[in-house]
């Protein structure tokens, strides 16, 4: 695949004709920025980066790529953690940073039209004072783009109640792999409220949902109508300490089973509690081995009702201490405990490998125990800070990138953790995507027929296999390879693309 490299100079000229000289990068020093994303597991520079400004320009770039059999990769802010924006096979990176306009905020219909390159946090700053917000809140929201959030179906702390990005994407302007420009949700006339404003429902495949989470393999998103959510009237946060991880896990189960729907329900394990306390002297109680951060929001009555229930379950599960906050300043102070965990890990090792897998909520306690055991067996430090409410685990395996033997142990431990999660009825990724990081593990989760159906979908969109090739599906699962035996060659140090330089996040 892609064996014939396109001639550099004529290609640069061709691309410059489309986007303008200033917006084609091809010098090695300029391309270095684009050789990886936040998953620095793999580095591979593109031959070109183009920075188009309109869907028409994106379309012309894609048509050129098709005509010349050159792969192309959409890129937002490059904060992806699974290597999705890496040019594995070289080619053209299509940077969406110039699609940075917030075009319309339609408060009545609770929706906004934004460019794919708009930074998530900027949209929310822009919405201040409207009583509305864009709910998906990945921790990277100060940098990651709406287009990247859509492509990865990003989640965040508050997606337990508010849903992940797909629940907030109404219609996408997408440049399809054949160069066609399409809105995923039909519109019937260009009059107000705004051009291309999507209908809330239309029959047919849910193309918005299909494109969301497709990691740039089914098309390049250039603009999006997103849903805005009314801000809750009341917010309450509790930081609850427990003497044992099992107590905290059982408390999570009781809260959710008894109809408490927190906006956020986060878990910090013993290692993380210790790290944060040592680094920042947070004053957690003696003997605290696990912490839950619970945020309730809604109208005053429902928050009050759920608060009573929540306190009941905290006590039932032998909470050591409950700190509560209702003012914004106090809430922020409580959240610091979680937000500072990454910095606290830095006191142990310079880097960490952030895993992302999901298990059924009821399996929290046994799976956590196994993860700790895997860490011990591989002689690596593991801190767990994660979205407990939806069972989305984030084991952070700490390491020194200069220690090759340790890196190898980290990779093996990570793989063992994935196995444990799948055995518990879980999945490979809850929010960071598959990308290059986990595509060879897809065969652990899906049968050849399952993967063939995904390959067929990819084929319907991109028969030339040029849109972000080599991601998501295991190698050998391209168009025309349906129902063939799949391979599982997980990423190892032997992979020629693997690099151990730099911190991984």
């Amino acid at each position: 695949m892609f064996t014939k490299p396109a001639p550099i100079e004529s290609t640069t000229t061709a691309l410059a004709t489309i986007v303008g000289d200033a917006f084609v990068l091809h010098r090695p020093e300029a391309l270095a920025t684009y050789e990886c994303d936040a998953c620095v597991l793999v580095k591979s520079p593109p031959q070109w980066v183009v920075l188009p400004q309109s869907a028409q320009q994106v379309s012309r770039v894609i048509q050129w790529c098709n005509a010349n059999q050159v792969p192309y990769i959409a890129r937002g802010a490059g904060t992806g953690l699974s290597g999705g924006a890496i040019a594995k096979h070289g080619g053209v990176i299509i940077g969406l940073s110039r699609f940075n306009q917030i075009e319309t905020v339609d408060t009545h219909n609770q929706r906004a039209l934004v460019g794919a390159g708009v930074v998530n946090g900027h949209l929310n700053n822009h919405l201040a004072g409207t009583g509305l917000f864009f709910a998906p809140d990945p921790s990277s929201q100060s940098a990651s783009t709406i287009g990247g959030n859509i492509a990865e179906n990003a989640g965040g702390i508050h997606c337990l109640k508010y849903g992940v990005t797909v629940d907030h994407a109404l219609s996408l302007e997408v440049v399809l792999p054949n160069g066609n420009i399409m809105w995923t949700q039909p519109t019937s006339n260009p009059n107000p409220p705004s051009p291309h404003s999507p209908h809330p429902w239309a029959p047919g495949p849910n193309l918005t949902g299909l494109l969301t989470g497709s990691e740039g393999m089914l098309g390049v998103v250039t603009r999006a109508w997103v849903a805005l959510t009314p801000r809750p009237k009341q917010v309450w946060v509790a930081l609850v300490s427990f003497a044992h991880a099992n107590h905290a896990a059982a408390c999570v189960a009781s809260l959710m089973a008894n109809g408490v729907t927190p906006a956020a329900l986060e878990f910090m394990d013993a290692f993380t509690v210790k790290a944060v306390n040592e680094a920042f002297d947070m004053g957690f109680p003696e003997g605290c081995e696990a912490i839950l951060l619970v945020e309730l929001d809604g109208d005053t009555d429902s928050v009050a009702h759920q608060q009573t229930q929540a306190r009941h379950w905290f006590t039932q599960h032998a909470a050591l201490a409950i700190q509560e906050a209702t003012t914004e300043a106090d809430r922020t102070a409580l959240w610091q405990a979680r937000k500072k965990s990454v910095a606290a890990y830095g006191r142990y090792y310079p880097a960490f490998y952030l895993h992302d897998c999901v298990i059924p909520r009821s399996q929290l306690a046994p799976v956590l125990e196994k993860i700790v055991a895997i860490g011990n067996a591989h002689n690596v430090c593991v801190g767990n800070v994660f979205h407990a409410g939806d069972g989305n685990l984030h084991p952070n395996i700490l390491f020194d990138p200069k220690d090759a033997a340790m890196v190898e142990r980290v990779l093996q431990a990570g793989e063992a953790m994935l196995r444990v999660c799948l055995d518990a009825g879980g999945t490979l990724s809850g929010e960071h995507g598959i990308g290059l990081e986990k595509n060879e593990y897809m065969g652990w989760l899906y049968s050849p027929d399952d993967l063939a159906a995904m390959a067929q979908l990819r084929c319907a969109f991109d028969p030339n296999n040029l849109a972000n090739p080599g991601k998501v599906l295991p190698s050998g699962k391209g168009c025309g390879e349906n129902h063939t035996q799949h391979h599982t060659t997980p990423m190892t140090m032997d992979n020629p693309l693997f690099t151990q330089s730099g911190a991984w996040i």
Partner: protein
Amino acid sequence: MATPTTTTLPAPPADITLQLSARLAKPLLATNPVFSPTTPQALAGLLRACQAEDPAQPRTAVPTSLAPWQALHHHWANDHTARMDSGIPLGTLNQALAKHGQWLPCLAPPTTPLYTLLAMDTLPLAAGLTPTLAGRYPRQWLLGMDTLYADGTVATSGGRVMKNVSGFDMAKLHTGSMGAYGVITHANLRLESHPQSLGAALLPVGTIADGIALANRLRTQHPSEQWLACELVPSLLTQPHTGIGLSLPWQLLVIVGGTRPAITTTLKALQQQTPQVLALTPAQWQPLAHTIASPHPLAIVTGYPSDIAHLSQVIDDHLQTSPYPLYSHSRPAAGMAFIRGEYPTQRGPLPDDWHHWWQGLQATLSPQYHCRITQPHPCPRWQTVIDTCNLPNDPAMLSLCAQLKHQFDPNHRFLSPLYPITGRAY
């Protein structure tokens, strides 16, 4: 004008219809006009047998029912998830889930098969006032599913966990597609805790505009999570269901869930807004809810919350000219209106006045309002389907959908109202 013969259109068994070769279909049709495979494997076997057939030979549409597929396989109550056959009726499912205080938040008639809800994917009547919250559309209930494809293979996608970005989300191909690309055989769903109790009230209003204004006030003033529904319905519908004599022509039907004291407080608060508020018993509101939540309206008009008042008014004005007994109701928070009623009984070509009436409505609405009329009835035995291509007419989207059909069902085994089938021999 003579009153045309009408009848209420029976819901089809499920909205997948197979198109089989005459040879394969004959024995099936001899025994039963509706094919009811007992297991997905039985249907898979038949589809595999079809593979050997020449796609060009004459074929017969075989209405296929998934009704035998009704099992609830697992209910992981602690996880708020369950795995089930796709043909399970909503009532059967919710009854089983109720043992653990959970439900699928949808007020459609209890006989509605899950498959129909998923295949249609319209905003159900329990979606509340903030349709963007997670779990509102049927597609958001789906954590994973098994699908039977036209070549007889079954593929799984997703899983049974709350968040999942492992691979393409194939569920989004099938939800809303009315069976065009495959048959959903099993579904893994996310569930919700059932509110301690449900309460409902009617708020009578004189005009559509007043009703929508009131709905908008409630939408901004009241908590979204307690509100399952807020629907503008005509008296001609509420009266027979509730048995209450109503002096005003329109009512807002409000359905709330929560603790008993919370519901009482909400209903009292409503009383302060509109003194004539009428609290309804379950025996009164449930049949009404089932009628307006039935997944087979004659048409769904999708607009915006901001123009739903005008949209509803224009539809209502046009309804006055209808030669058939039709009515409409509106879901203001979603910007949607539904047209229901009776349908001409004649098979074959529909009467001209029926067509003229719909064309008239389309003409009245389309230049002025940003809306779209969809006639979703999925049963190909009725002529509308043959006349209607429900896919939007954007050429890029049409060509993409053609590619999808070509990939997943190249021989058009699955009839679906999404694809125009005029001119084909059956």
